[in-house]
């Protein structure tokens, strides 16, 4: 038992109302890539935060190389040889690459020396970086490199990677995997957190599966099918949406040459976006995060008006109209961020129902609100979409992610949109809620509405879309029928070639040689 690098014994951590980790025990051996698998909310984040010294366990202990390990803070964890790459990057946009790296080190060398080391290490692992560039200007893949290089400079014994591929193109994922295999070969252990099953089967030698805070299985993922893993993770058989493959009806939404400048310093401009959406169609728009998804949704919902002639709904130019006017005409939207964008967290569900339902559900006359009608509408959404909540007067922020997402999507669908645009409909939502939401979107298309689904989850898009395209740096790839697309084609549409300059390819060749 002493050959394990890290041993977890009976770790337990409870938050008010939820036990995040319940008696979790497993081991990570030196030089292995160990998967930590589980749904959102299974307790993966809490567990890694415990290892990284951000969370104190209520009970249980950890051993590192056989000696008790209880880091008081991330600094202590780093000193012991544990490094972590975060899911949501812990980077500082306005600072340079070198400054960002320095912040992650406890004893950084001088600026010039650090710059040289960044170049050296990043190239050795096939992740080229310019230490003087401002991080805010980098692509998602490059930003992740900054994090990884920051960790590697400290020669960690254990590298924790939290959902590292959610922001990468398939080609970038391949580069990352090459790097990770090389690291493991050199003796670094890697704790790899993900819910993407194929990746884990590809990369990891050992896997621990968490469900509702408990370890439900330990296995060698290479010996299991993706379906086996999924069922361990979810604990029940998944309801798969039935795709009817709606065929072309009349043109509902026509977008031509839609170009908008970036809304902020670190935003993405939209460039010459064009597509046609027909009745009954589900158009899936893939792409890596930060390539214009939010901007496209804002342009379609009316949050950012567009110049005339770029967006038309049933032949009528709606580009200059604000969200309320677009809703009146049947163009509805649901943004990615539930709290603070799609819904106001401190307001009740009734008030949140009024937020978008005012015009189509006639919830006010001459500016005066009918609270009774608003409450009825909210109650209808809650009942029809199985939103688990004490009632319509509950604050939106008190709902779980999945329930709030069902409310947000249901609120729009019940208004019977002609066109519905949704960004990341199932992000951070548990599997059963995700399945229900996908089914609701398909049902909506079935009734003759057009649906645009923007998502970073390729599996989801392949499941429900009949046409597919991808956003890359604010541009839209040519639209293709979803059926029969290969993963390579999808990768190229997402801009797989982008970021892969000659240096990368050389580096890959070198690593593989």
């Amino acid at each position, binding site marked *: 038992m002493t050959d394990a690098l890290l041993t977890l014994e009976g770790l337990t951590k409870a938050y*008010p109302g939820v036990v995040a980790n319940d008696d979790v025990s497993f081991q990570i051996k030196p030089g292995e890539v160990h998967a930590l698998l589980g749904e959102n909310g299974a307790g993966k984040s809490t567990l890694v935060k415990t290892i990284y010294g951000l969370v*104190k366990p*209520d009970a249980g202990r950890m051993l590192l190389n056989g000696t008790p390990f*209880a880091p*008081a*803070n991330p600094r202590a964890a780093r000193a012991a040889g544990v490094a972590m790459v975060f899911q949501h990057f812990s980077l500082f946009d306005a600072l340079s690459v070198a400054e960002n790296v320095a912040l992650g080190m406890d004893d950084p060398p001088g600026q010039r020396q650090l710059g040289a080391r960044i170049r050296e290490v990043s190239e050795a692992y096939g992740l080229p970086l310019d230490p003087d560039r401002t991080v805010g200007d980098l692509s998602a893949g490059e930003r992740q490199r900054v994090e990884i290089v920051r960790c590697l400079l400290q020669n960690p014994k254990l590298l924790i990677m939290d959902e590292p591929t959610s922001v990468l193109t398939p080609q970038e994922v391949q580069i990352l995997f090459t790097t990770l295999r090389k690291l493991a070969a050199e003796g670094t252990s890697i704790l790899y957190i993900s819910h993407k099953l194929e990746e884990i089967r590809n990369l990891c030698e050992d896997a621990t599966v968490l469900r509702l805070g408990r370890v439900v299985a330990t296995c060698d993922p290479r010996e299991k099918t993706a379906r086996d893993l999924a069922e361990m993770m979810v604990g029940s058989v998944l309801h798969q949406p039935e795709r009817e493959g709606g065929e072309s009806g009349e043109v509902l939404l026509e977008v031509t040459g839609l170009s908008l400048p970036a809304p902020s310093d670190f935003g993405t401009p939209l460039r010459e976006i064009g597509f046609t959406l027909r009745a009954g169609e589900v158009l899936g728009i893939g792409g890596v995060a930060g390539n214009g998804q939010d901007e496209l949704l804002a342009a379609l*919902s*009316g*949050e950012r008006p567009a110049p005339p002639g770029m967006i038309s709904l049933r032949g009528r130019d709606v580009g200059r109209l*604000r*969200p*309320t*006017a677009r*809703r009146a005409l049947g163009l509805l*939207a649901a*943004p990615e*961020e539930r709290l*603070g*964008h*799609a*819904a*106001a*967290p*401190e*307001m009740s569900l009734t*008030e949140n129902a*009024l*937020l*978008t339902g*005012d015009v189509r559900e006639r919830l*006010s006359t001459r*500016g*005066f*609100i009918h609270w009774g009608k608003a409450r009825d509408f909210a109650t209808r959404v809650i009942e029809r979409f199985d939103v688990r909540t004490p009632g319509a007067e509950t*604050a939106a*922020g*008190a709902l779980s992610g999945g329930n709030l997402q069902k409310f947000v999507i249901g609120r729009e669908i019940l208004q019977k949109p002609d066109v519905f645009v949704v960004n990341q409909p199932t992000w951070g939502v548990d599997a059963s809620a995700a399945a229900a939401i996908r089914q609701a979107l398909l049902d909506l298309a079935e009734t003759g509405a057009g649906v645009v689904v923007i998502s970073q989850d390729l599996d989801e898009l392949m499941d429900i879309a009949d046409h597919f395209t991808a956003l890359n740096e604010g541009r839209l790839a040519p639209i293709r029928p979803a059926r029969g697309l290969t993963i390579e084609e999808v990768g190229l549409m997402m801009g797989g070639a982008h970021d892969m300059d000659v240096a990368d390819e050389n580096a890959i060749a070198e690593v593989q040689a």
Partner: protein
Amino acid sequence: MRFALEKRPAPSRLMLGLTPLFAVIATMLAGGVMFWALGANPVEAIRTIFLDPLFDPTFGAYSRPQLLVKAAPLILIAIGLSLGFKAGIWNIGAEGQYIIGAVVGAAVGLAFYPTESRLIFPAMVIAGALGGWAWAMIPAILKTRLGTNEILVSLMLVYVAENILASVASGVLKNPEGRGFPGSRNFARDYPAASNLELLPGTGMHWGVVAAFIAVIAAYVLMTRHKMGFSIRLTGEAPRAARFAGVNPTRLVVFSLGMAGALAGMAGLFEVTGPAGQISIDFGSGYGFTAIIVAFLGRLHPVGILLAGLLMALTYIGGELAQLMLGMPAAAIQLFQGMLLFFLLAMDVFANYRIRIKTREAA
């Protein structure tokens, strides 16, 4: 053992109601210590400030009506400010809007001197509101057109307004029969058609008090029943959600700053034609700043503001009484009011967070 804060999903309504009371109590305690340090008997000082203005047999008759007189401008201004504050629009230049409203309204009245007509006073009220509105439109337009910070612009305009006041008091609006002294004609004494006199003798009730009550009711209806009020709340709590809902931020800024300016301008007009009597260099009395405290103490809620305005008026009158009776410096009461705001803000933590006691915490 240590304390930890845990964010509540939504602010506790109970605590939102209770914290102003706690803040008042804490201020009384801290204020008592301050008065004691200044050499006064703390119990006596607190009694003089909070109880004597209402119940003292000698002063009560004089100071009770003063309560409404002082509260009216505070409530009028605070109601206007609360609309913007709720939406995260920080107009802190109400003092300037109050001064300009008074100057413009007074100028209209003086232009008609000595005509006697029942239309003059209403015309002055409208002019005062327009003056305050126009002054508030400067930060509003700069913010909506150019994105200029409204906090700094509205505040800078207070100093500009004070200089304008000084200029007109000894210039265009100077009383030609005033033997060269700066200051305008006295409305209350010399120009009945343009004066804001007590409506019911001995109550302190004047048109400004009536306007303050109307403002409270109108703001209550606006905030609870009307889309504009909903938009204001939504913008304050979740600005992105407001944009998504279709709230027009420009309209919101123009509306809330405009309302605040108009109400402050009206308050200035009621003050200059009644309690103050005339345009003079020291007309600006700080109501515009104290109203900020009133707005927060009242939880930006119309009814809360009504109560907070009365309480703050009480501290003004009680403060004067304490000056008179106990030789307390005037500044002590200003400090007292500042303390009240601090305690309230500090206690907000109870409304927004749950306090938990952790028994086992390593770091």
